[in-house]
């Protein structure tokens, strides 16, 4: 029955492709998409190609690709000499990985409890943990700063890790709970019969929700790496600067040195774009699987 229904539609679809009106529509669609792709990439492209040119070439021929005559790395020399970008990268990596680890560990544990056990207050706890999805943590900044000072943590990476973990947990728990609920009961009950402890069963479930853990990790990685607000307020010291804050400070100081500005923008941008290309499939799958609902 279903097969028979499908047949004619494929035929109409095939014949529609060869209609002149349809070809025009396709061309129009590609034209719009190409134009928008160009708009999205043109500024990035312009910065990258000009970062390896001499000052005169940047202004004389901004749209030309670098040639042996215009090739000049003076901007990169300035950046590497005047800003400690290596340290900023290390700091950003520690903060991002630390917060992600906490989010995934604490988040999956809480999600497991909410998904697995019927206990009094389960629904209330779920709601309490979900409150933070819509309320931005920035509104509590003044009290966060005071708390961090009281705990003796100002200008530490740990303060950033804890704050980013707190802001990432609500959505992580929400997403992971949905996935944990889909793990078949029989599996867990079989393990229980075999005498496995609840902690063991949790460890057993964890690999089964790996795709969800990946989605949560990629989701949280970008905003944590890119955040300016909390590094600026909680850890502005030179030794704890993240890439985003370091770039912000450096760019502010060297605003008139075009070579240095273009070079530092490229240096901060390229790792993010490489990471994005590596993880884009996972990120897009996460976004399009309705995880945000």
């Amino acid at each position: 029955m279903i097969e028979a229904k499908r047949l004619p539609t494929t035929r109409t679809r095939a014949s529609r492709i060869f209609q002149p009106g349809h070809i025009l529509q396709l061309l129009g669609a590609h034209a719009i998409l190409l134009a928008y792709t160009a708009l999205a990439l043109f500024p990035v492209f312009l910065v990258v190609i000009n970062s390896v040119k001499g000052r005169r070439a940047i202004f004389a021929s901004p749209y030309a690709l670098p040639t042996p005559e215009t090739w000049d790395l003076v901007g990169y020399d300035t950046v590497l000499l005047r800003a400690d970008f290596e340290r900023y990268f290390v700091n950003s990596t520690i903060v991002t990985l630390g917060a992600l680890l906490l989010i995934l560990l604490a988040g999956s544990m809480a999600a497991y409890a909410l998904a697995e056990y019927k206990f009094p207050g389960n629904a209330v706890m779920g709601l309490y943990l979900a409150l933070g999805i819509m309320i931005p943590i920035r509104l509590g900044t003044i009290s966060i700063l005071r708390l961090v000072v009281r705990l003796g943590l100002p200008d530490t990476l740990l303060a950033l890790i804890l704050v980013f973990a707190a802001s990432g947990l609500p959505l992580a728990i929400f997403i992971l709970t949905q996935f944990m609920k889909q793990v078949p009961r029989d599996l867990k009950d079989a393990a229980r019969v075999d005498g496995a402890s609840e902690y063991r069963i949790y460890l057993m479930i964890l690999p089964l929700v790996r795709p969800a853990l990946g989605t949560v990790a990629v989701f949280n990685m970008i905003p944590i790496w890119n955040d300016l607000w909390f590094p600026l307020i909680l850890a502005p010291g030179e030794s704890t600067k993240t890439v985003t804050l370091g770039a912000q400070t450096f760019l502010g100081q060297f605003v008139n040195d075009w070579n240095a500005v273009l070079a530092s923008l490229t240096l901060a941008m390229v790792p993010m774009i490489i990471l994005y290309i590596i993880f884009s499939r996972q990120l897009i799958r996460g976004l399009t699987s309705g995880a945000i609902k």
Partner: protein
Amino acid sequence: MNLAAKRSNRKPFPVHILVFLAPAVIIYTAFMIYPLIDSLRLSLYAPNENREEVFVGLDNYQRLLTDDLWQPRLEGAIVNNIKFFAIHMLVQNPIGLLLAALLSSQFIRGRSVYRTLIFTPTVLSVVLVGFIWRLILSPLWGISSDVLAVFGLEQYDKPWLGLEETALTTLSLISVWQYVGIPMMLFLAALISIPDELIEAARVDGATAWGVFWRIKFRLILPTVGIVGVLTFVGNFNAFDLIYTIQKATAGPNYSTDILGTFFYRTFFGIQLQPGNPTMGATIAGVMFLIILTGVLLYMFGWQRRMLQIEL
């Protein structure tokens, strides 16, 4: 812990559940819920002559709403924030919808390549995006006049970020440029999940592509339209980074780009010679909290309930 105590006269509360919940609940409560509540409490306090914070009730809110020093800044920030939000709703989300509609068609080759490339600016930090556009729009470099010249409009070139009339719109459009990928992805996800049978049935009935889109697809993705709207609202009324990066905390020229986020930062952190004022800062955070809460509640009880009725 309370739960365990209450139940102790019956069955003891299972310890392992507490162990599973504890890390997340402790971190989340200590660094998110407690600061939010404490910040609201702080908005009801003000320093006295001895620099001790004492309870003053709603005085701070009254000052913010009526004092000649505070009121114009608050009003300016709210008006600018509404404009910032309106431009996102009118430009970012329709463009996102258009791109998603094109990308959801099976006839377009290279869909995933377009999708990945268009999303690229979204993953960049706002600081980088801000400086990239500062360079592009700099009259010194002249890129914007070159681009306008392609369309024969070079006489309209302006220092877009330097003029009071154009700075806020320009900043909003930069933000749109960066974030258009998010509504695009959400709309795309919703459009892809519409069953083919529904669309084919309408096509067989002779509906045009335009008709199918607005009368069937758009109605089916209305829940996503609501989610995109509320996410845009929360994001915009909480924005800060882009304006701080391009215009500094003073949100120039002449406060024309000041939004609630920059007003909040300036007030509690202080700038240049003006010292920070934590309690007034907390009051501004309180106002932002009320605005965002109103938006979220309107969405939950207005939009989402109507959506449920449509589904029934």
